[in-house]
């Protein structure tokens, strides 16, 4: 299974150009972020110009990957080996990160212009840059040290961004997030300590070769799992997620929900895959929690009165879909076909959710910004006045609901097919319940918005870029449903 993560030998050495591209991929976001702090752009155009080279690096890496297949880098820095690899998953997630990041960046100037947050807004840019870099590093990293460093960097940057809005609620939520994230990483580190102590390996590929099931692997997996589950907001540990989004800025929420929690999940999946090659119960446990997450997140979102809470709780439920796929990907005795289906479904769901959730946060942010109210009741009559924002919300929610022809649907289809093939009927029911619950809370929004009886007079006009960016994201999530083979082809090419 580890080949799926690109943890195998590469056929070709990376070209010298590729080294530079890699360096640019990792460094440019931070660099431009600092520039952003210096100049604090008020318009979309400069941001767009800056995004172009970053996106270009991603595209170059993609081309490189398609030509040469898996790529590996390894450096010795002061006796410590740092290794990176560019596999199918890596390049896919890298691209998603860059594009969603670019979308968030493009959305930001309009948002800042309309909200006038004050001085601290300029810190958003470097934090965003750090976040993107850290995320890119997480997708690329192939040893536990790099992963740890990137994870911490990402966590701190994320906390910083979430704190920027400066409201007391944000501070409190941020404090909780900070503490939990730090403790989570320590749990991870504890697990790494066991691994390092027992096998003396930090390199994932080498580790995968030497690892054998035993108490150390189990306990390390449990500790790592607990830490990362906390960071990834997996079901019973998700409590910090909603308040954080409640008061954060829209682009920050978008980035966070789309990518940050996914990164922890990705690490969790990868490490468990290495540590627990033949475990049945732990992935099952996660899957059960995932089912609960689907139902719970859906219920919370359904009963919530605030738009942002709704969107944030929906993340909990959506993560549940990913959790449910765990036993199919990790577990033993899964025939190859359902395994492959679940693998594809997992990533498609992850990508689709990333795009759609970002779009949804932006749409929700737009609605809240325009109406000046964050409750669902404040949406009355928006269908007439803000049709575009609502349409974006709708497109994104189609993906979240998993209705065709969105990527959510195709992903759900793949997962369902895998589950049916392996006779996991409870998971099937949970997935289908998820669709209904998602529909329930999404259409609650629409029900309020279609209400024509409450007339409103003043709406804050929105910057066109805000809607356009969100629309592009939502459409991308939507279109991936029918064009799913494009991203999934990348997954399959991962260094077979």
């Amino acid at each position, binding site marked *: 299974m580890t080949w799926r993560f690109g943890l195998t030998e590469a056929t070709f050495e990376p070209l010298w150009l590729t080294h530079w591209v890699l360096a640019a991929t990792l460094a440019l976001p931070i660099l431009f972020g600092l520039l952003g702090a210096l100049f604090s752009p008020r318009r979309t155009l400069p941001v767009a110009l800056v995004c172009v080279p970053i996106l270009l690096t991603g595209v170059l890496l993609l081309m490189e990957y398609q030509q040469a297949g898996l790529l590996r880098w390894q450096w010795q820095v002061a006796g410590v080996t740092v290794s990176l690899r560019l596999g199918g998953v890596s390049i896919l997630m890298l691209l998603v990160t860059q594009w969603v990041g670019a979308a968030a960046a493009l959305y930001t100037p309009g948002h800042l212009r309309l909200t006038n947050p004050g001085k601290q807004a300029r810190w958003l840019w470097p934090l965003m840059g750090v976040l993107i870099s850290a995320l890119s590093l997480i997708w690329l990293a192939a040893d536990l040290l790099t992963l740890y460093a990137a994870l911490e960097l990402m966590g701190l940057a994320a906390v910083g961004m979430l704190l920027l809005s400066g409201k007391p609620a944000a501070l409190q939520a941020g404090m909780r997030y900070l503490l939990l994230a730090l403790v989570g990483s320590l749990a991870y580190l504890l697990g790494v300590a066991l691994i390092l102590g027992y096998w003396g390996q930090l390199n994932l590929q080498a580790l995968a070769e030497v690892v054998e099931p035993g108490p150390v692997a189990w306990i390390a997996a449990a500790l790592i799992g607990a830490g990362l589950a906390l960071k990834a907001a997996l079901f019973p540990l998700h409590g910090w997620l909603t308040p954080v989004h409640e008061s954060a800025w829209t682009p920050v929420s978008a980035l966070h929900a789309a990518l940050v929690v996914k990164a922890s999940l990705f690490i969790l999946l990868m490490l468990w895959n290495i540590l627990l090659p033949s475990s049945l119960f732990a992935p099952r446990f996660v899957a059960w929690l995932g089912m609960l997450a689907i139902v719970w997140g859906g219920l919370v979102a359904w009963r919530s009165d605030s738009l942002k809470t709704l969107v944030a709780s929906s993340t909990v439920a959506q993560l549940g879909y990913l959790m449910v796929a765990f036993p199919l990907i990790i577990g033993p005795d899964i025939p190859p076909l359902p395994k492959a289906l679940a693998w594809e479904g997992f990533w498609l769901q992850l990508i689709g959710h990333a795009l759609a959730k970002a779009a949804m946060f932006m749409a929700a942010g737009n609605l809240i910004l325009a109406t000046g109210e964050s409750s669902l009741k404040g949406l009355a009559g928006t269908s*007439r006045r803000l*049709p575009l924002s609502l349409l974006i919300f709708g497109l994104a929610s189609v993906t979240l609901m998993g209705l065709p022809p969105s990527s959510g649907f*195709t992903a759900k289809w793949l997962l369902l097919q895998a589950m049916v093939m392996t006779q996991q009927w409870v998971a099937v029911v949970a997935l*289908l319940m998820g669709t*209904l619950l998602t529909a329930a809370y999404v259409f609650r929004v629409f029900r309020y918005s*279609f209400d*024509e009886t409450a007339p409103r007079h003043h709406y804050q006009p929105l910057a066109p870029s805000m809607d356009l960016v969100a629309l592009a994201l939502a459409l991308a999530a939507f279109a991936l449903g029918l064009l799913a083979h494009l991203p*999934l082809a990348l997954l399959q090419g991962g260094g077979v």
Partner: protein
Amino acid sequence: MNAAWLPLATLATSILAAVVIFLLPEESRRLRTGINLAAAVSKIILVALMVGRVSQGYQDTFSFQIVGGIDFVLRADALGVMFAGLSSLLWLCTTIYAIGYLEGAANRKRFFGFFSLCVASTLGIALAGNLFTFLIFYEMLTLSTYPLVVHAGTAKALAAGRVYLRYTLTGGVVLLLGTVMLYSLTGDHSFASERGLAPYLNDHRGLLTLIFVLLVGGLAVKAAMVPLHGWLPRAMVAPAPVSALLHAVAVVKAGAFGIMRIIYDLYGIELSVELGVTTALAIAASITIIYGSLRAIAQHELKPRLAFSTISQVSYVVLGVSLFGPFGTIGALVHLLHQGLMKVTLFFCAGNYAEELGIHRIDEMDGAGKRMPLTSIAFTVGALGMIGLPPVAGFITKWYLGIGAIQADMYWVVVVLVASSTLNALYFLPIVHRLWFRQGPAHGFGEWPKEQRLGRLETHGWLLWPAVFTAMVSIGAGLLAGLPFSPLDWATRVAIGEYLP
């Protein structure tokens, strides 16, 4: 020679129309009307082209791969083109009607945008070449009709929309489950495949039955079969053109059409009979037919009565599908078209009464025939057709269904048909009687609830002519059923293809 562009272009016409309408500003009424009509007309032309191609024996197919083992397929086969023809024809009528109906109303952009999407979904359902593609458009239909149902934005409309979604989304989920299970069992299975699912019969009998129940159960929600019909009467709060479209082509027909696809093109009729599911389906359909009629009698408002009538009538299609034998099939297929024509007429008329005179209740309709003769004639034609009286198209259907039932040795179905006809007469004839034989405000007794003079004629021309046109087509489809390319002829062609491959 495969003209893959043809089904794609047909589908794209209405999607493009929807996109353009969404892009236009709310105020540009003329341009929107123009685009609507142009798209509708061009779609009819494209469908006519497809009809020509199909009658020459081609099956134009457009397909591409989504993920491994799952394809997106649009195929213009005889059955699909039949449904596409119905939807494109009635789309034109309904669009014209809607333009007149929504004159001066708010949110027209949204309405027409989703209206076009709705029709696009219907067309996609018609042309879907496998179950996956079908499912895509089936769900799209659910989503695109929701804004239409809640269009009025009142509390009642919103509640109706909620109920609508509860039913249809649940149905969609069940359908999804069935589809996934089928794919897991058999892989991608095209509707055009000749071999059916018979090879799996020996090993997976129970599973096949279960999948069938799931698939048909999911579809039965849209087909409004008892006890899954609850959404339909509530959805009546939608504007008249929407009700017309929902009832005549889009939603309920999508369900019925889906059941047809499942039985004819997926399972194969022999296998379905072998599994014994057709009898169960026939019983369910019969219950629906009788129940719908009984409930219709109890209604005092026009649109709910029509809604329950729809519940009853759509199950005729299902009933016909479940009768083994060419006549039952022809009856089902032809009723798909005929019921569409007649029901759309009735809803147009109901809308006309409501718009022009403010009539919603049946006891307000006394003597409306004098005030609105053409509308009332159209209504009468539709009502008589629903009863199954010649020369309106409904008779043809009832005839074929009855004969199909006899041939399938299901004599009780004839009893159901006759009972249903009698019940239909019981709830439609009083309305007709009120229209023509009672004296009302037009004769100087009392006043209309809310009279408006919308046009030079009895009402606005945009409202009147679609109703008259569909009424005429309903009569024509019955009177000249023997003509080539008539609904009956085309249905016979499809049925022959089904039974004599």
